[in-house]
């Protein structure tokens, strides 16, 4: 299967699940925290992403609980999901490192011409 670039909400959902199972709203809150409040997932978006990730076997259901009369469905990362998250994190880190190296080069050349 060819690996396509992962969109940020998908990345944040996988990252939010990295340290254990979580239910819907906990995922929304965690994604907001991970992105410093920049990404506020809507419920429709979240469940579409979870459905797609489930089809790709990157996440799976981890039980239902009823709390205060509300159903909370939990999700967890599969091994394949953890591996995919690792790959994406490495890709992003590599891009960030390349960008930083370029910026260092720019700073050095600016200092030399000053």
């Amino acid at each position, binding site marked *: 299967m060819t690996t396509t670039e992962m969109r940020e909400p998908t990345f944040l959902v996988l990252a939010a699940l990295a340290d254990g199972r979580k239910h819907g709203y906990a995922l929304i809150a965690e994604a907001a925290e991970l992105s410093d409040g920049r990404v506020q997932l809507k419920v*429709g978006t*979240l469940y*579409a992403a979870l459905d797609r990730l489930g089809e790709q076997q990157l996440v799976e259901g981890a039980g239902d609980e009823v709390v205060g009369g509300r*159903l909370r*469905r939990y999700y967890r990362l599969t091994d394949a999901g953890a591996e995919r998250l690792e790959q994406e994190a490495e890709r992003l880190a590599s891009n960030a490192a390349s960008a930083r190296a370029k910026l260092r080069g720019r700073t050095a050349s600016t200092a030399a011409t000053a």
Partner: protein
Amino acid sequence: MSAELERRYRVALDWYPSVWREANADAMLGTLLDEAEATGRDRPALTQTLNLLVFGLRERARTALPASVRDRASALAWGLGAALSAAMFVATEWAPWAGGDRYGLPWKSGGQYGLPLDAAFGPFTSAGAVVLALWVAAFVVGVAGAGTVARWMLAATLPASVALVAFDSQPWAVLRPTSTGLFLLGLLAVYAMQGSPTASRRGRAWMLVAAIGATGFVLPLVFRVASWNVLYDWWIPRMVWGEVVRPLPYLGVLAGVVLIAVIARRYAWAGAALLLGVAPLLCIAAIVVAYGEALTILIGLGVVVMLAILVRQSGYRLVLQRRDGGA
């Protein structure tokens, strides 16, 4: 938490098909109520409701048609829409062969129809140039792999087209292509946006091949318009439209594509061609029923809304599978 809030969320969740609701509605409702509680909300936010509408309808489309058919129909729509837009742009909006002074443009020469001199849109015939250019640019961006940007660009063509038609009768309005042409491009844009061929290399290759094939279909039209030894006037876009989607040749091409796909056992392509075929068929039907501009749009939109309601009510699922035993 009020029962009214829960009721309103349940109504919003009705946009999802029944199969989905049975599996997920309670969990989604729990999440919506958790979120409302955490943010101190006592009525659904408009953005949340719109989000449920969009994803609910998308899920209905997914339920009714498998992704393989939708992605192929989307790729075909991208290709056809881009080729059609490019042809219309060159043949009717730009028309370089018309010369620097737009040979014969009645509104440039104060001509026979008494149109104002400034009715043309800059160097182009009408403001339709914006919609057509946006379509072609969206295709290029999509083929380059930036699917989200491409979809937003395509989405922007929809309000632009509606505005062109809606403000048509205003004294300051600019000229525009026929409403039927804009309607077809609008339908193709919706088709293109409902799949995601831009996400994979194979999907983008389908888009390119579809565009090349469709260009072969519309290119004779450009040459034909260029060869017309007539004064360039307002009815040429209408003639172009008549050239592109005459019912019989169109149905012939559609039937041929479906037949070839079925013989080759490419059932997903057959489904995609049939699905795509509905869009021009709606336009043709609208033209046949009432050869009028505003009426054409209204009838077409009415048919689309009825189809949408049917999809909402039915939740049927089309499943494509190979027969066992290699028969």
